[in-house]
């Protein structure tokens, strides 16, 4: 296996350094800011590891949406000063951490260097799988149950966060001028980019999740810019949130009743099925993540 | 238990259980005011069970054993067999349950929570009969632990702080015992597979005792300790006096028949039908058991001397009398074994009479202390007579039942070459006399104290001294005590059946 090149060492050091900064900064704001930087550095690392899909997802979801959620919490900084962990606890924690790390590094050195069975299996079966890009094929055909359940996790997280909201949601009224200006430019661009990512997914890095994150970003910008439709938690919003999961289950049930079995995509119409499900999934993920953002932002609003 | 019995697969043993289980479950759902329905259900169940026993006794004596088996877990099954010994104990239980039901209905007239009481009362008898009919160790354990659970609410029935404390001690002791029995049974079943009760001891267990005496001894000790709690062997007996907080019918049935006899019955089953007398003796456990029983006999009688509360005195008397059976079972002589088995029956009848009388004194005149009983015979002659008959029986005076079971024990002791048994029996008889005769003397001879409340109070002169439903059961059991003594020769008498069973243990 190729020895570690300079770029790898620098990148690894950068990731570790930013991670340490993110967890060691005492103030909440510092930690969140460092976390955003970590998101970007990780995206670079994923690109370096030949995983453009993951780099996109990391930038869009990991530091994008999660970053937006975290930044949103900063506006409600609690007055309570953070109590520091006890001296002994810190020492014990560090010791345990060191021991664990040492053990893990020893274990990890024993990882065999030849590839697993799966890349070959995927390459072999990909021709009729409804998507040329291997990752999308895995996500939406070979391991489609994982993707379905993952979308379900998002739906029920949104439902859970939504349940915590006590008072009806209102879009922020005093919207500063630059925000509306930015929104007017960003919204169409984000939607366009999202759609492109969605369609590119079948042949190149892209797909439902990255597109969903783009749509979520668009909705968040719309909400911040005061658009009423983005702030609604009504039936329509909830319907779109669950649309992805329902579409997937409908496909599964359909293939079970009519086709050869649960989620068995016949090569003839596999491509069409994958694309339609991906589209509904992307929009549903976008609305779902936006609902989580809206629920979060609303949860802090004290009814005046 | 007789070796040459043909085994019939039949549903009778299950019906025996259902006759008290079904009424019990139904009674739970009855409202308090449905007295008549509850009474009929109770009586129907009791009578049906006695009738079934009457049907089964001639069959079993003729050598036909009824058996019902249910698969439970792979390799282990619940077995109910109605052989002579199990029917012997089942007969005792169902007979005295019938009598006690009548007594309880009278005793609890107008008391709260009667549906709950009679529900658990029926479940308690179901468990007792289940223990009697158990065909293997697992089934025995099954009903042994169930008995603890259903008797706890009975002991705590009154709901007073004292009752709840007493019940808690009772639960702690009996569950402790239950855990030990569970350990013993699991250990044995794992080593030799499911153990059926077979006359003269199970072959597999004998084989185990030969190969691994250490383990066999350990299992034996664990089982004895577990069963010893319910058999009230010293030092595991402390729960018995404490459980006297229970209402009279509960004390009567539980501490004369159900709970305590379950322990002793278990010991006899383990010693005779699991290990077998020879094997148990070779392991040296027989001697340990005999000594423990001897100590308990004397200890029980001694403590009974100092108790002023009548029920406490009877409780310690039970502790002592129970160990007669254990002692008899632990002697290598058929006569002693027969005596022990008969004593199970006779002690049951006599002790239940005494508890009935104690309940009568408490219920009618509100007297619970021995010292308060001065001259009570004048007011309640019939109860006093019943008490006296039972007391003389307990002391072992001929021609009463007590003599019929104590005498063979003494002979057995000599026959087994254990002369100290005779000494123990003699001292115990003297002690019995020492704590019963003063009560009889107080009842009959001493004039009632002037200040006694029951004397000054104008009492309506009724035809009989106490409610019939309380008095009649006491008289019946007193009569039984006399009958078992006099008609010991009858071929269906407890003594005869006990002798048949005893022969089975000496192949």
């Amino acid at each position: 296996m190729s020895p570690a090149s300079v770029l790898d060492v620098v990148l690894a050091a950068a990731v570790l350094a930013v991670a340490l900064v993110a967890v060691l900064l005492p103030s909440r704001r510092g930690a969140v800011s460092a976390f955003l930087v970590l998101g970007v550095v990780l995206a670079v690392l994923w690109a370096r590891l030949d995983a453009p899909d993951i780099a996109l997802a990391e930038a869009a979801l990991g530091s994008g949406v999660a970053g937006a959620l975290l930044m949103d919490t900063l506006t409600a900084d609690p007055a309570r000063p953070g109590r520091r962990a006890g001296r002994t606890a810190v020492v014990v924690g560090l010791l345990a951490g060191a021991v664990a790390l040492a053990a893990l590094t020893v274990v990890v050195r024993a990882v065999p260097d030849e590839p697993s069975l799966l890349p070959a299996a995927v390459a072999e079966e990909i021709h009729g799988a409804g998507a040329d890009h291997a990752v999308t094929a895995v996500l939406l055909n070979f391991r489609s149950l994982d993707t379905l359940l993952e979308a379900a996790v998002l739906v029920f997280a949104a439902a859970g966060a939504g349940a915590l909201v006590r008072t009806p949601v209102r879009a922020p009224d005093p919207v500063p001028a630059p925000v509306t200006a930015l929104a007017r430019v960003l919204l169409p661009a984000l939607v366009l980019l999202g759609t492109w990512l969605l369609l590119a997914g079948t042949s190149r890095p892209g797909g439902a999740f990255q597109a969903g994150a783009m749509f979520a970003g668009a909705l968040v910008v719309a909400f911040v810019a005061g658009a009423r439709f983005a702030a609604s938690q009504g039936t329509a919003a909830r319907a779109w949130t669950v649309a992805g999961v329902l579409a997937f289950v409908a496909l599964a049930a359909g293939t079970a009743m009519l086709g050869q079995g649960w989620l068995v995509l016949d090569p003839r119409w596999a491509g069409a099925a994958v694309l339609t499900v991906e589209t509904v999934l992307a929009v549903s993920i976008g609305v779902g993540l936006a609902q989580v953002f809206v629920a979060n932002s609303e949860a802090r609003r004290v009814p005046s | 238990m007789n070796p040459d019995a043909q085994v019939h697969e039949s549903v009778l043993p299950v019906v025996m259980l259902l006759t008290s289980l079904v009424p019990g479950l139904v009674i739970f759902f009855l409202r308090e005011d449905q007295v008549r329905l509850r009474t009929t259900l109770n009586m129907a169940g009791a009578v049906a069970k006695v009738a079934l026993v009457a049907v089964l006794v001639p069959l079993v004596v003729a050598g036909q054993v009824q058996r019902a088996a249910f698969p439970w877990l792979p390799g282990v099954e619940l077995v109910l067999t109605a052989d002579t010994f199990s029917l012997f104990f089942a007969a005792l239980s169902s007979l005295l349950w019938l009598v006690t039901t009548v007594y309880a209905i009278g005793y609890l007239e107008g008391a709260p929570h009667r549906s709950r009481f009679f529900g658990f009362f029926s479940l308690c008898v179901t468990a007792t009969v289940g223990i009697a009919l158990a065909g293997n160790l697992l089934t025995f354990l099954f009903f042994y632990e169930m008995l603890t659970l259903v008797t706890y609410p009975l002991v705590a029935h009154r709901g007073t702080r004292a009752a709840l404390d007493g019940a808690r001690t009772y639960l702690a002791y009996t569950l402790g015992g239950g855990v030990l029995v569970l350990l013993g049974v699991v250990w044995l079943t794992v080593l030799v597979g499911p153990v059926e009760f077979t006359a003269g001891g199970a072959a597999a267990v004998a084989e185990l005792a030969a190969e691994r005496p250490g383990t066999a001894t350990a299992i034996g000790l664990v089982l004895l300790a577990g069963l010893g709690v319910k058999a009230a062997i010293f030092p595991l007996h402390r729960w018995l006096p404490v459980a006297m907080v229970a209402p009279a019918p509960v004390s009567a049935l539980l501490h004369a028949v159900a709970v305590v006899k379950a322990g002793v019955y278990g010991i006899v089953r383990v010693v005779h039908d699991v290990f077998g007398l020879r094997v148990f003796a070779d392991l040296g456990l027989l001697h340990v058991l005999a000594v423990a029983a001897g100590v308990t006999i004397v200890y029980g009688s001694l403590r009974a001397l100092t108790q002023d509360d009548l029920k406490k005195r009877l409780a310690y008397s039970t502790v002592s009398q129970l160990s007669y059976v254990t002692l008899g079972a632990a002697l290598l002589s058929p006569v002693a074994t027969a005596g022990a088995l008969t004593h199970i029956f006779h002690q049951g009848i006599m002790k239940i009479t005494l508890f009935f009388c104690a309940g009568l004194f408490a219920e009618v005149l509100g007297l619970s202390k021995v010292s308060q009983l001065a001259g009570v015979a004048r007011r309640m002659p019939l109860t006093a007579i019943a008490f006296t008959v039972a007391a003389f029986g307990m002391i072992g005076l001929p021609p009463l039942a007590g003599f019929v079971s104590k005498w063979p024990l003494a002979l057995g002791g000599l026959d087994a070459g254990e002369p100290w048994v005779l000494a123990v029996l003699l001292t115990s008889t003297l002690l019995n006399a020492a704590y019963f005769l003063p009560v009889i003397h107080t009842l009959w001879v001493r004039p009632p104290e002037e200040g006694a409340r029951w004397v000054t109070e104008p009492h309506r002169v009724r035809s009989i001294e106490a409610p019939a439903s309380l008095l009649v059961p006491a008289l019946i059991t007193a009569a039984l005590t006399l009958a078992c003594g006099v008609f010991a020769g009858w071929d269906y008498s407890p003594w005869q059946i006990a002798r048949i069973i005893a022969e089975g243990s000496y192949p």
Partner: protein
Amino acid sequence: MTAVVAVADVLAVLLLAAGCFFVVAGTLGLLRFADLPTRLHGVAKADNLGLGFITAGLVVHALAHGGGIAGGGGGAGGIVAKLVLVWLFALLGTAANSHLLAAPARPEPGAEEKPEREPGPGPGPETTPEPEAPATREAP
């Protein structure tokens, strides 16, 4: 032909170096300047310029080698277009953010001039998220 590529490479490296220099300068400005508007000014202007140089360097590199690590369709033209788009969006983002951060600090246009401020310009109202990065900023 390789001569053109060599020259392009040298040019790309120069442009990238210049870009990095300006980014570092902007960050230094962020750390060194005292109050909010000046720090905002520093970081916005210099970083954008730096990013412009880096983008230019990459464009030259892409033109020279016909597709780089970004790969994907459209050959060199596609990449150049995407790189320029990246730069434009970065500019848009920085502009909007600078406005938002600076807005509360700017006195309302209509309000009259406040009386003489107390001696020594205190640091602007703390609205920016003061990163307690171990920056050694001595108090003004």
